[in-house]
């Protein structure tokens, strides 16, 4: 996997920072400074000191040795990348600012102070691109204190602190940045003036030494927005039985959503941060909460939606924090009036499937979601999901033209209607019992229907080919 797209150059850090220190030092020693100028430099020094003190022993310096195989793209070559992180628990849970999958073969070292540990990814969250890493310390580590979190205002100074390895004698490096503005979203980001790539993942403080965020590419994630989700992610990483299922995995709201067009919203005096429910599937949590196709979602869990266009959808999904069992309350507009509904996300129903190797196909039962997803014109049948090469279903009169195709809906097999998977199974049993030489298949293909006869004497009947 590609851990980090930008390969950092750790060697440049000392020079960069040294340059900054020298510049400050020179100015400091300049005896011609006015008192007010001197106060400015003192304020900088103080802010740096506050931040360094506050981060204490919770600073992590990750070094990843990437093998060529672990990278994607054309330019594959082994290399080392560095980035920052923070200590989350005494027992060795760390936060890394990338999605790192557990199956990675990269060697990941975590330097905490002068100690180096081998770190393994435990749990990642793609929506924010962060991973909980684990090391095995001999002594308890010092987790960063997230009790009092502050936000940055536009124009406010920020201090970013990163650690290093023995190459620069485990120095701490400090970068000053200015908050240029706040980027809205489910997780706000403070836009920062440029800091080097290696600061990614580092804690960001205000000039008073209050923790405000985590450095990302050129911004800082607002920790006050992330804190709760990080705590959950940590719980999951610890395998703690919280009674909740893991995030994102098949949690089901049960509707097709699309953002409202801004011009339409303006013309109709509707909020531009809103999502249409284009199809609400019967029996889904959204349906049970009373929502129907054509409703316009304007608020989630008591908060109006934010942003517009495709970003409102992203905001909604992040704010929904999808997990099975998670409660939600939604406000929608229907015929000019607000409607409210509450519910709990459930497990996405998986259609049952069946493999008919005799015919050379796999089929699945059809639900409303599949009808919408594949634009099916028939739901009283079974959906072909795969056709095996060389099988009776694949071998037509002309080379390369299958008799049956994925997304065909089989409505009858060997003269027996197959409205359900069970009925299809029975027809298949009949075929296995009677072993006819040829079998008639009736199917729906898009808006039209067809009939084909499959030669049951051909194909590899004993193995799943393909």
């Amino acid at each position, binding site marked *: 996997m590609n851990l980090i797209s930008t390969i950092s150059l750790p060697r440049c850090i000392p020079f960069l920072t040294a340059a900054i220190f020298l510049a400050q030092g020179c100015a400091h020693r300049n005896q011609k400074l006015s008192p007010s100028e001197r106060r400015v430099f003192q304020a900088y020094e103080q802010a740096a000191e506050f931040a360094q003190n506050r981060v204490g022993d919770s600073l992590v310096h990750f070094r990843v040795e990437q093998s060529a195989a672990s990278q994607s793209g054309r330019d594959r070559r082994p290399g080392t990348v560095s980035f920052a992180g923070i200590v989350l628990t005494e027992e060795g849970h760390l936060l890394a600012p990338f999605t790192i999958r557990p199956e990675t073969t990269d060697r990941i070292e975590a330097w905490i102070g002068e100690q180096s540990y081998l770190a393994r990814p435990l749990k990642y969250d793609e929506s924010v691109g962060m991973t909980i890493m684990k090391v095995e310390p001999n002594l308890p580590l010092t987790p960063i204190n997230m009790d009092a979190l502050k936000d940055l205002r536009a124009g406010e100074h920020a201090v970013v602190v990163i650690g290093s390895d023995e190459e620069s004698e485990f120095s701490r490096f400090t970068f000053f940045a200015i908050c240029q503005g706040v980027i809205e979203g489910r997780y706000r980001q403070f836009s920062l003036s440029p800091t080097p790539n290696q600061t990614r993942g580092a804690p960001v403080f205000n000039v008073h030494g209050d923790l405000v965020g985590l450095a990302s590419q050129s911004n800082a994630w607002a920790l006050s927005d992330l804190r709760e989700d990080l705590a959950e992610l940590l719980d999951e990483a610890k395998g703690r039985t919280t009674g909740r299922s893991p995030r994102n995995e098949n949690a089901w709201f049960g509707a097709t959503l699309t953002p409202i067009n801004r011009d*339409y919203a303006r013309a109709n005096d509707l909020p531009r941060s809103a999502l249409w429910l284009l199809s609400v599937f019967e029996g889904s949590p959204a349906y049970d909460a009373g929502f129907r196709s054509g409703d316009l979602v304007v608020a989630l869990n008591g908060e109006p939606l934010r942003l517009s266009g495709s970003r409102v959808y992203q905001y909604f999904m992040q704010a929904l924090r999808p997990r099975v069992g998670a409660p939600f309350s939604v406000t929608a507009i229907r015929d000019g009036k607000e409607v409210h509904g509450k519910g709990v996300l459930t497990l996405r129903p998986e259609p049952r499937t069946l493999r008919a190797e005799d015919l050379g196909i796999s089929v699945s039962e059809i639900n409303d979601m599949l009808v919408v997803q594949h634009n099916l014109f028939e739901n009283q049948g079974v959906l072909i999901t795969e056709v095996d090469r060389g099988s009776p279903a694949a071998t037509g009169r002309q080379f390369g033209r299958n008799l049956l195709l994925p997304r065909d809906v089989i409505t009858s097999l060997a003269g027996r209607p197959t409205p359900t998977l069970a009925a299809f199974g029975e027809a298949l049993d009949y075929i296995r019992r009677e072993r006819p*030489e040829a079998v008639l298949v009736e199917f729906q293909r898009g*808006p039209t229907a067809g009939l084909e006869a499959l030669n049951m004497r051909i194909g590899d009947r004993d193995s799943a080919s393909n």
Partner: protein
Amino acid sequence: MNKFHFLSILVCLALPGLAQQLFSPTLDAPLEGTLQTPEFSSDIPAEIIAKVDPSVVSIQHERAGGTGFIISEDGYILTNGHVVQGDDQEDPSRPARTITVVLHNDLKYPASVIGLSLDPDVALLKINAPMKLRPVEFADSHKVSVGQRSFAVGTPIGLRRTFTSGILSNIERTDLGTETVVFQTDAAINQGNSGGPLFDQQGRVLGINTYGGRGTNNIGFTIPIHVARDMIDDFKEHGRFVRSLIPLFFTSDLYDELARVLDVERGILISYVMKHSSAWEAGLRSGDILVEVDGEPVSAGNRAELLNFEWKHTVRPPGETIRLKVLRGNGEARHEVEIETVLEPLGPLPQFARHRGEIPEYRYAFVGLGVKSQSMLHHVIHALPQGVEGVLVKFVEDNSTASKADIQPFDIITHVAGQPVTSLREFQETFEAELQKRNPAIEVNLVRRKLNIRTAIAPDYLMQHRHVALISASENSEYVDLMRRELLALGAKITVYTEDGHPVSRDLLDRPLYADAALKDLEVENYDVVLFAGGSGARALWENEEALRVVRDTIEAKRHLAAVGTAAMLPVLGSPEPLEEKITTNREDSAIAVSRGANYTGKDVESDKLVHTTTGQERDVVREFLTTIYQATLRTPVR
């Protein structure tokens, strides 16, 4: 009869054809094929060569070229459709513009396209030569055999009068997904052979060479000549090939397994009948087995037989009565059903498989939206929802107003500004009424597959403070509708004038374009732009006192003066002083323009100070012209 051939179409659609991957029209085939001369035992006699040589012509136009052959003394020529096709996206059935036919003796003649089809890939051209031409002799392509000697004449890679020879390798090829069977030959067929004849040993035409195998050796395909001959009368009479059918059902040949499981020896399977179609109303049902047509037994045990059967009925005259006998039910319940119905003419085809489509698009380029009428075939081909009335989105330009509204091709627009739009006409009227109001957000309801979507088109109305006088000749005017439509999309206020205030030419939807007033009432002070439409009718304006007065007034009042094509002469003719500004006009009028002292540049679009002219030779040139006018108005204050 029905579009039996839609079965093949279906297969093509579902599996982006093997045929399409392996084979391409020879015109498009790469050049890498090497010419190989097959061994042959006897020479082609000199008299045969002398007989066929004068009948074969080469064809050139602005985009490509190919081969053709003369079929009548008065200059009818057969070739492939793809040899003479144009590239007009909005009107895909429009042929190339400047087709030239070069005879064997190097004489060149301009040719007009009488009719053009891409499947079967046949076109009929006509040249007017002062002498009698030597037509080919036709063979009976129903009576051919594999192994029969054949030779091709054509213009491979531009090499005129190239003779290549071989045999008929197969005479019932159906693998290409074509509407009819085609012949396969090993006579070398290369890029440029397209449209040329394949002769038998006696020098009689067996077919039209059409496709070549890409990356193969000596695999060429030829459309049997009887197929092309079946289409000639339609081309002459209707300008297009009109199929007869009972819409809409699909058929399948009774291949071995199918015959066994259906327990029937002969016949043709009706695999699908669209509900509530003519075929359905006539009484046909899915699963019927067709055994007789007009008292004659019919059967197809393979695809070639099926295609031959289909073609035989496709070329019958529409309106003929047809009697079918089908078997229905299984086992003991099987019984015969007799059906009598009438063959219907198939309307223009949508784009699918090898067809580029025959349905013109109605485009508002300054909104980035093109729409067209829906047909029953669209529903089948593009899996559109059934029973949804509206217009079909054909074109959405990237980064346009329409794409900002997230409108996508194959959406069906059902409502505009809350009004149902069940036809293209209704769409046009409703949409243009909103444009005229300069509605900042025109609400649109769409159906996309299974979803209903509400959105809004927010045009930029770049010319919303400008008033345009659009002047058209009373007859033979061009692009009046296009300019009116596009100026509306730009937000301009438009007043249409004709010489006498009577309606002018009809639009794409055959709707007369109403004139608001007569030319004598035009007061240029009320307008920012005075725009003369082109077309041959505009020549009448050259000597029209009112038109010349309007030109003079426009120049004196320092308003924008714009003119298209033939009308582009008007600024030269009407200017009180010799016109200093550069102009352009169509090629025919350029000599006159120069003789009148015009500063003629010949560019597609010319804009000099307040005078704007264009050759107006294509839709897109006219649109570029309108953009130029818009940009020019930015330099003059709003009145």
